[in-house]
């Protein structure tokens, strides 16, 4: 991917990365920051990939699979909230919905995973198209509420429909081999399959953000009336972004169904929609890597605090509160801001013995 994005969109791509940092940062700053940050982003991605490739040597692969599934889900969600400014409070319906579809295709229809996973993701995309068409007509909190309402209706459907298995969910979904040869039954092999799926989804999102299409999305986020007056069919852009986000959320859900051999109500409940908001927020909304980091942090926390019962809830709540009050840019956002401040301080030091030092900006 590094090669593919390098030449065509160097200029557009760079502004994107830095304005992703935080909507608060001024455009002058971001232009200054653009070139080095882009490289930093690539290095970060390659480092991530290298780490991900050797991770199963040190960590339990099924745990990593879980992190990757949620990371993809959070990235898909972030595409919408971070780059279009639409907070969906019903994304669980695509995630969980696709996991039901995929589970049914694998278990009852006997489809191989290479067919079932994309088909389930597309089905989620189709749902996204319908839901999006209804929801994007509203803005802000109303948008969140419409998505929530539709997701609750889908939850009801999942509880009632015979194929979902109600409260029990679809259990014992078979891990059949991909293309007849790649044994997903082996946890480590499965991990690499999921890593491949995640990387594909992640790069698609990355590419989207840095394309002209992505630029228009950000223009809509920053100033919708202005985007309209510039002649963009704003609703069509929003709908396309919504559908893409739903499809990728579905991809994550379908993968999870294969990996965990289970599709259950947990994944379509509104709490799941809240959880993905938490992951994205903790990692950094509107940053490329934020959701990945956020998902890793939250999943790890849930995993290690599992024995402490209600304290998981309390800890999650405290994280929410602390992040909202003190670190609104999230882990990655704050790290980028920190790097940015250091870089500017160095520049200032280099540039001038004259003039006072730049005050450390508190957003």
């Amino acid at each position, binding site marked *: 991917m590094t090669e593919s994005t390098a030449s065509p969109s160097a200029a557009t791509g760079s502004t994107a990365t830095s304005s992703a940092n935080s909507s608060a940062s001024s455009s002058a700053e971001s232009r200054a920051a653009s070139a080095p940050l882009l490289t930093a982003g690539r290095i970060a991605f390659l480092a991530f990939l290298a780490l991900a490739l050797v991770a199963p040597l040190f960590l339990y692969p099924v745990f990593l699979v879980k992190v990757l599934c949620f990371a993809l889900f959070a990235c898909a969600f972030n595409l919408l909230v971070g780059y279009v400014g639409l907070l969906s409070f019903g994304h669980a319906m695509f995630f969980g919905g696709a996991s039901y579809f995929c589970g049914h295709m694998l278990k009852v229809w006997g489809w191989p995973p290479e067919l079932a996973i994309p088909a389930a993701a597309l089905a989620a995309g189709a749902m996204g198209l319908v839901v999006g068409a209804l929801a994007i007509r509203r803005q802000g909190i109303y948008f969140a509420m419409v998505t929530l309402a539709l997701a*609750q209706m889908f939850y009801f459907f999942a509880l009632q429909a015979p194929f979902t298995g109600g409260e029990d969910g679809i259990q014992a979904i078979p891990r059949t081999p991909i293309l007849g040869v790649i044994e997903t039954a082996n946890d480590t092999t499965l991990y690499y399959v999921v890593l491949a799926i995640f990387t594909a989804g992640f790069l698609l999102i990355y590419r989207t953000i840095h394309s002209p299409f992505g630029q228009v999305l950000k223009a809509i986020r920053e100033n919708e009336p202005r985007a309209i007056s510039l002649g963009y069919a704003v609703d069509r852009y929003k709908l396309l972004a919504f559908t893409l986000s739903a499809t990728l959320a579905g991809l994550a859900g379908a993968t999870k169904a294969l990996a965990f051999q289970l599709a259950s109500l947990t994944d379509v409940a509104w709490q799941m929609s809240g959880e993905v908001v938490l992951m994205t927020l903790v990692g950094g909304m509107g940053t490329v890597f934020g959701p990945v980091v956020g998902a890793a942090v939250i999943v790890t926390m849930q995993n290690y605090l599992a024995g402490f019962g209600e304290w998981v809830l309390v800890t999650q709540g405290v994280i929410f509160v602390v992040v909202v*009050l003190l670190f609104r840019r999230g882990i990655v956002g704050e790290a980028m801001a920190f790097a940015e401040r250091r870089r500017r301080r160095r520049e200032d030091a280099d540039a001038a013995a004259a003039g006072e030092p730049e005050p450390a900006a508190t957003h």
Partner: protein
Amino acid sequence: MLELIGVSPQMLFGQLMLGLINGAFYAVLSLGLAVIFGLLNVINFTHGAQYMMGAFVAYILLVVFGVPYWGALVLAPVIVGAVGIVIERTMLRRLYHLDHLYGLLLTFGLALIIEGLFRARYGVSGQPYPNPLPGGTNLGFMFLPTYRGWVVVASLVVCFGTWLVIERTKLGSYLRAATERPDLVQAFGINVPLMITLTYGFGVALAGFAGVLAAPIYQVSPLMGANLIIVVFAVVVIGGMGSILGAIVTGYALGIVEGLTKVFYPEASNTVIFVVMAIVLLLKPAGLFGTAK
């Protein structure tokens, strides 16, 4: 599942009555949310947890301090409201200049903390709270427990009292003015931040009040608010965010709609409100009583 024909008029009256009783809770809760949203522009996700706190404070007052129901009815909302004021002063206040989204996320986090702490302390089976008004009246079509009758009366009084204060008094006019132009109202020498704090405290106190009302009917349990909050959101959205009258009327109306669903299609009774909400938002985005801002 659909048994339209099998329902007698007697049965229907009974269910309408029960719907009204549930609507009484929705109305008090959504009123609190609407008041808070109207002035603070904050979606108070903690509302469900504060409702639960109201019930627990009543329980603790009774068990530890021996304060009876009627005392708790006054004291518990005050205590819960005071906690709300602390939350507003120390945390919410810092978020007013940001997107509404952050207020929602903060209160969501607070809700998790409060619920978790009560779970850790009290478990989840729930605690029993004695019924202060046992007995009831036979209305012919149904047996109406006295306490449920009291719930409807108390809710009506509180709701319309609040509405009157906001729509018909000087204090209310300040409040409404501050909603529109806080800077101007401040310029007239009114302490807007204080007013905001008190409004949040009042909205939260309403949640606490609903909690005390609920204590004798439902188990006093840390989980009692978690699912309710989503329903109450829907009520507020349907009524029109920030509309006081809308929240009250919609609260009662949806209680009744839900009650009827319990007769005709009981499995869907938790979902019907969301169906109504989706339809309303598509046809009338600002809600039934809202005006687009």
